[in-house]
């Protein structure tokens, strides 16, 4: 279980990293298919105003570097890493609300920017919309599955699959 603002890494093949009921938050999944190491950050907000305390995973700006550092410390190679992101929904739509209030969208943009800054292409993403998501990353093959109320469980990508290619450049 990856709680709000947490970062978790696993190299146990039977592990499944899970972020339950993401609303505006984003589950950032990274996977090293060669070393079979999985990591997930549960990002809550785009950027920090003050210090992040003991939850570096809370902000996109601090979560991505902290997630990559944790992966490296567990033996993952930066060049191997594959990435999928999901979440960033707008659960509550206010009439006439400004884009500033759409934290989900701002989270998605911030996460995408931070990944680009760290030269990490995104292999699959399911962001935005107005539906909550549960995101799971399977440690054995990098499978990312997404559960929503409307559509049940669907597979987003298998990050460990050799055919897995990134969607952006």
């Amino acid at each position, binding site marked *: 279980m990856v709680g709000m603002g947490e970062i978790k890494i696993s190299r146990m093949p039977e592990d499944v990293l899970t972020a339950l009921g993401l609303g505006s*938050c984003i589950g950032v999944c990274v996977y090293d298919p060669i070393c079979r190491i999985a990591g997930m950050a549960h990002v809550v907000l785009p950027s920090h105003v003050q210090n992040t305390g003991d939850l570096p995973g809370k902000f996109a700006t601090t979560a991505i570097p902290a997630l990559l550092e944790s992966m490296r410390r567990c033996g993952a190679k930066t060049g191997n890493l594959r990435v999928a992101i999901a979440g960033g929904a707008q659960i*509550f739509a206010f009439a006439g609300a400004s884009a500033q209030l759409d934290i989900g969208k701002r989270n998605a943009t911030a996460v995408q920017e931070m990944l680009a800054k760290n030269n990490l292409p995104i292999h699959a993403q399911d962001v935005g919309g*107005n539906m909550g998501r549960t995101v799971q990353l399977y440690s054995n093959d990098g499978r990312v599955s997404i559960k929503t109320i409307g559509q049940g469980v669907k597979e987003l990508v298998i990050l460990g699959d050799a055919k897995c290619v990134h969607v952006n450049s």
Partner: protein
Amino acid sequence: MSGAYVPLDEVQKDVLREIANIGAGHSMRALSEMTNETFILSVPEISFRFLSDYPLGFGDFESLSTAIYMPVLGGAPGHTAYIFPYASSCKLAALLLGRDAKDVQTLEEMEFSALCEVGNIVISSFLNAISELTGISFHATPPAIAVDMTGAIISSILSITSQEDTHVLSVMTRLEDANNPLDGYFLYVPEPSALPVLFKSLGMEF
């Protein structure tokens, strides 16, 4: 930006509980008048938890809930929401629209607008009661309604308050209908900056 929360002592918690109790009591009276049902309120539960420990205490994260959420501006900013298990919100909508409960299995446009209106009245009663007690003026904003996973609803509300703190303070009051299973809860999340204002308005040091 509103800074970080200062942990509350037992007396302050009691006062906050009492504020929430009075507010929720008034809002339940409004709900009872609209539905002709009697509701029983629990003692408000105050949680001050590390962000990553939420939404612990709010039941099954993936269960379907209906939430009417209203951000509160003014002297003591915060967030208020009425959250019901989906089946309960269908029953409530049926009551409000004068229909048979078994005829409302899903929420459509009409039910949403009825629930939103009720949310508006009920949350406004909550704020009016607190305002009378403290002399603080609140600005109610138009409510928004959502039907989704409980975890997604709660985390979306809490994330807004967590900008400068890794803890969140929440006050939850459960409601039970004496006749129907219309259980739900009222969530009040004061922003960190609201707490000194609330306590000082009652003559307490903070």
